[in-house]
């Protein structure tokens, strides 16, 4: 029996969502960092939309697969008080990260704006701001999933 088999339906579902985010957005940001030059708006939008579509497709396929294999659990109870409590606790952590990340991006923009006036830096492009915010959002989602798994495993 593998570790995956020991997980409940809900834990498997969370794990799949987390892995899908890590792999798909990991690939998206790796390609972005590896690009020689900043892609244009059209290329960035198609890459972002492509990543989102890939995420939706992967989630649907894998959730359908575990629902078939774990039919009895998938059809049983909806989220109960413990599931909601765990999700709530994980949300507190991920929201803290999201708020902190957004504030950091904001601070970065303000400092950059001030330095820009003195001519010391080249400035931040909208492309960078959009991707920084996307990174913070994806990271907070991954932490939300990870924290839920941690709380489920602890008890």
């Amino acid at each position, binding site marked *: 029996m593998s570790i995956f088999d020991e997980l409940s339906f809900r834990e498997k579902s969370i794990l799949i969502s987390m892995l899908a985010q890590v792999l798909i957005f990991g690939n998206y940001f790796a390609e972005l960092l590896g690009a020689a030059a900043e892609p244009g708006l059209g290329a960035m939008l198609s890459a972002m939309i492509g990543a989102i579509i890939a995420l939706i497709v992967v989630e649907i396929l894998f959730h359908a697969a575990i629902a078939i294999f774990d039919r009895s659990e998938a059809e049983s*109870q909806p989220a*109960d*008080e*413990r*599931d909601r409590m765990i999700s709530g606790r994980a949300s507190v952590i991920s929201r803290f990260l999201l708020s902190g990340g957004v504030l950091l991006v904001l601070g970065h923009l303000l400092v950059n704006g001030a330095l820009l006036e003195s001519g010391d830096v080249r400035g931040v492009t909208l492309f960078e701001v959009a991707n920084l915010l996307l990174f913070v959002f994806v990271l907070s989602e991954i932490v939300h999933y990870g924290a839920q798994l941690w709380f*489920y495993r602890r*008890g």
Partner: protein
Amino acid sequence: MKKSHIANNIRRLRFDQGEMTQQALADAIGVTRQTVLAIEAGKYSPSLEVAFRMAAVFGVPLESVFQYDPPAD
């Protein structure tokens, strides 16, 4: 979640009910089997409502299902 200071007799009460399964108990009180498992292992303290529902399923007073076990400090 820290180990709670609430002890329980759920395992014995399930046995007394003709080896009621965790899934059957979960269905009867409206939670998932994993939640029953966590409550039984003392890793999760349920809401009062779930605790009372559990006592009603077993047909015993609440104190027969859960007991407060204060920390020894």
